[in-house]
């Protein structure tokens, strides 16, 4: 090879110098490049430190919303009506389990979970997102929880999650007033967003859907809390950095008396109808029960379509309907109010008498309107007209008053309008008038219809709630207290992230009053009230049987409403009429006569025989008996008790005789 020769004449020192120079140049370059690297790192770690520090934190720190505990609901005596009970569910993060199939079968054996459910779970596991906990089994029993807790070390990746769920210990007894909560759906979310509440509900799963739960949703809900956590790139929580506890919702104390409610339920058992009891002094609802009812708890966990269909089936008699706020023909129960209207119009005085031959004929018209008493009541004045519920008296009065004067006055008593009670499910019912008929049917008003209105029929419908309100106005001599369930709210004050264990702050509900009804003569009130007193207290009067022998001084009025037209001269016989066309029984009552404390309105649909006095009267009687101390149930346990209902049921069936 040629190079050999050249090596011999190589200038080694020159080459070494060249190499050294080149090495020096590269070394300088290395130094410069190192400086470039270092200054770049300096730029990142010193100049841009704040920026990257922030970005690093926003990578790892997440703010998790924490749902506040929903406020509890108590009755007026402190009995818990709506509770939050812990529900335990078994959850798993499959990525943290070594052999999911094996462990699942082991844990299932431990907790007695069926093979069928296991297979379903295994299938579900495949379609889930990574590192997300999966609910394996919801609603574990306490025994299952303790069994698992003891053995937890054997099941890495499995854990028990506790959540609070709404529970109504009295079930169907309170549903129509309390309502219920259920899962927030799309519509709810949109509504919350519109109200700007979406953020506060970020962690909330359920929302009030009906009744008080819906009406007082905002108060019951509370304020969201936040947990600041560190997460990894899979979104899994590594540890908690900071915690701002949520502020629980306010507890509600209602005017409702659960014992009266129980009596109402028992009194209405086997019947379709409703009872409303109000304290006329403040408008507080003491009882509101509509039969049949349903268990609101069904909806909290999401009702199955099978069960829902069953509720909707005709055989169930529309349990979802709150009959206490649905319209019924008032029938004779509004006669006292018509009498008052007549007095105010100076068309009658207490001494004014008419003659009742058993029927009424409009001047110049053939058609006869029958009284309920075939042979008539003879001479009838104001008191007797109420005692005997004389139709002819009121046909005559209505004719003289005319529809406009009647409906104007009745509207003042709240008919045909919302009472303003604190549930949303209220109906306005109908207070007919000339204008109403024109608007509704585009037809003229007939005088004959005025006569029907005179005995609480025709288009006129009232809700038991409206009826109880009207009676309250009557006994309050014109003062109008808006009916309500809420008695007080209470909240625990939270200060500086530490829960103050002091007594909760109680805020009494301020009763809403409307503009009172004023009459030209205050004695008119007493005249009508006196008539109602006699209706119950006088032997032989229509309401006498209902309150015979009661220890308190009651007053009241019966009513029997036709639900089907009966041809002239045809006699009504309940046995011959289809069940759903039978008469409705109505009753209003209040007591004590002097300074009334309770007003009761009862409506019972399609009674087999008799009228308001025999069917609805005893219902009012039982409630008042209970109220005035003939207590069948003495409750001592006012603390939380999951078996309240059973205990109370036993009490009812053991101690109560048939009325």
């Amino acid at each position, binding site marked *: 090879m040629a*190079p050999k020769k050249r090596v011999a004449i190589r200038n080694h020192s020159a*080459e070494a110098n060249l190499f050294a120079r080149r*090495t020096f140049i590269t070394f300088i370059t290395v130094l410069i490049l*190192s400086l470039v*690297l270092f200054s770049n790192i300096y730029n990142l770690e010193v100049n841009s430190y704040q920026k990257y*520090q922030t970005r690093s934190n926003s990578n790892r720190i997440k703010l998790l919303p924490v749902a506040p505990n929903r406020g509890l609901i108590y009755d007026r005596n402190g009995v818990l009506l709506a509770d939050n009970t812990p529900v335990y569910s078994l959850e798993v993060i499959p990525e943290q389990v070594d052999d999911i199939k094996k462990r699942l079968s082991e844990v299932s054996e431990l907790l007695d979970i069926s093979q069928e459910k296991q297979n379903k779970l295994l299938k579900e596991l495949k379609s889930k997102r990574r590192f997300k906990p999966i609910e394996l089994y919801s609603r574990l029993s306490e025994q299952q929880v303790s069994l698992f807790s003891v053995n937890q070390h054997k099941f890495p990746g499995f854990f028990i999650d506790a959540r609070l769920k709404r529970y109504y210990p009295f079930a169907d007894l309170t549903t129509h007033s309390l309502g219920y909560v259920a899962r927030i759906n799309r519509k709810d979310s949109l509504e919350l967003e519109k109200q700007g509440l979406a953020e506060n509900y970020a962690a909330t799963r359920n929302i009030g859907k009906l009744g008080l739960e819906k009406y007082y949703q905002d108060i019951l809900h509370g304020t969201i809390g936040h947990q600041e956590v560190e*997460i990894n790139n899979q979104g899994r929580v590594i540890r908690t950095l900071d915690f701002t506890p949520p502020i629980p919702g306010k507890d509600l104390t209602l005017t409702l008396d659960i014992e009266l409610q129980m009596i109402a339920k028992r009194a209405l058992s086997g019947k379709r109808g409703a009872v409303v009891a109000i304290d006329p002094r403040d408008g507080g609802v003491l009882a509101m029960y509509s039969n049949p009812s349903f268990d609101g708890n069904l909806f909290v966990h999401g009702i199955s379509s099978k069960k829902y269909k069953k509720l909707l089936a005709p055989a169930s008699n529309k349990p979802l309907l709150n009959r206490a706020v649905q319209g019924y023909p008032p029938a004779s129960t509004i006669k006292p109010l018509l009498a008052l209207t007549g007095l105010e119009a100076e068309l009658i005085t207490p001494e004014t008498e008419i003659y009742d031959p058993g029927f009424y004929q409009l001047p110049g018209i053939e058609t006869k309107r029958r009284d309920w008493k075939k042979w008539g009541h003879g001479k009838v004045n104001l008191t007797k007209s109420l005692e005997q519920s004389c139709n002819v008296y009121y046909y005559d009065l209505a004719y003289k008053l005319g529809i406009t004067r009647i409906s104007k006055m009745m509207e003042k008593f709240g008919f045909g309008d919302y009472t303003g009670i604190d549930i949303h499910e209220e109906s306005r019912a109908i207070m007919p008038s000339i204008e109403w008929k024109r608007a509704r049917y585009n037809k003229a008003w007939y005088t004959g219809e005025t006569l029907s209105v005179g005995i609480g029929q025709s288009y006129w419908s009232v809700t038991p709630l409206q009826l109880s309100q009207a009676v309250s106005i009557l006994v309050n001599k014109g003062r109008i207290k808006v009916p309500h369930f809420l008695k007080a709210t209470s909240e625990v004050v939270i200060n500086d992230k530490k829960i103050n264990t002091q007594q909760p702050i109680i805020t009494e509900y301020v009763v809403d009053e409307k503009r009172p009804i004023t009459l030209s003569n205050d004695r008119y009130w007493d005249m009508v009230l006196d008539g109602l007193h006699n209706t119950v207290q006088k032997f032989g009067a229509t309401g006498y049987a209902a309150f015979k022998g009661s220890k308190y001084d009651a007053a009241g009025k019966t009513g029997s409403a036709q639900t089907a037209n009966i041809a002239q001269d045809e006699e009504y016989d309940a046995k011959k009429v289809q069940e759903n066309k039978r008469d409705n029984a109505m009753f209003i009552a209040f007591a004590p006569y002097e300074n009334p404390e309770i007003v009761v309105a009862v409506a019972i649909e399609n009674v087999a025989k008799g009228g308001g006095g025999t069917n609805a009267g005893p219902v009012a009687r039982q409630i008042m008996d209970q109220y005035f101390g003939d207590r069948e149930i003495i409750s001592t346990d006012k603390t939380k008790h999951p078996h309240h209902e059973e205990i109370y049921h036993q009490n009812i069936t053991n101690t109560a005789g048939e009325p």
Partner: protein
Amino acid sequence: MRNTGHDQQKQRTLWQRLHIDLPLLSGILALLILGLFVVYSAGGQENAVLIRHAKRAGFALVVMFLVAQIPPLSYRKWAVPVFILGLMLLAAVLLFGHVGKGAQRWLDLGFTKFQPSEIMKLVVPIMIAWYVSQYDLPTKISKIIIAFILVLMPTLLIAKQPDLGTSLLIASSGIFVIFLAGASWKLIGTCVGLASAFAPVLWMFLMKPYQKQRVLTFLNPEQDPLGSGYHIIQSKIAIGSGGIHGKGWLQGTQSQLEFLPERHTDFIFAVFSEEFGLIGVGLLLTVYLAIVMRGLWIAVNAQHAFTKLLAGSLTLTFFVYVFVNIGMVSGLLPVVGVPLPLVSYGGTSMVTLMAGFGILMAISTHRRFHV
């Protein structure tokens, strides 16, 4: 020299007799030990990862020690056949290679898998140093062109796999030899000019879409923060959030909470910067620079053109590792797969690097007996 040989042999320390260059070894050990700590932190604090890494480091030290025993001038005999064999193996990889991570790098020999490009990291500088050192320095243009072609062959074969990182390292190892051998500045200037003129052609006609994407991502990683830009963004966040003092060992949130990808391999520098901060980075760069200085010192003091060129090339290539890795992790350079030398988890490149240090040690300690 013969007369004093005996005396000198007496003066020789135990280390010299073992063919160990102590300053170099100190720097290497410092990096390896640091690597153990950082790999432990980056590898999810798993002992298994740590032990595997330690075993590889131990194995690499043994390889370094064995290589150091070989007289460096003896490589010249083997340069040509090994280089040809290497080229054939690279061709074989392209034809029958094993596909891993989207690239053909591995040759399955039946009993073991083997990455010929790693061997070429040593073979190419040996080959070019041998070729250039046969002629007078500075090298003539004609020889430079041949040397270039010799460098280009393995570079292109590896780039085709595709393994941009390794082809870059191999190309630079060859080019360093040519530069150190005294290629004229005029030639260097012409090459640089041609290369920059060629760049648009390369961009428009030769680069594949994914390669263009890489460059675009490098220029603006924020355009796709969850996709192609994710690596570099998370890496810069990790480095930047380390600050001056760092978050502390095992305390780096970007790495411990797994936001940083490839954290115990190519992106381990980000883990290190996050946990040890600017101070740590300064110390690390100092150690690297010390190793480079020692390597260049060995090169300058080598007594033969071949060993000079080889030592210089190996040392500078080591720095290329450092510069490219830190540069890409901190966003100065586009992402190419180059590990942080002696710190990153990953066996093959560490063994090759340590074998290279073995050669450097041999050059440092054998010189008096083989001139």
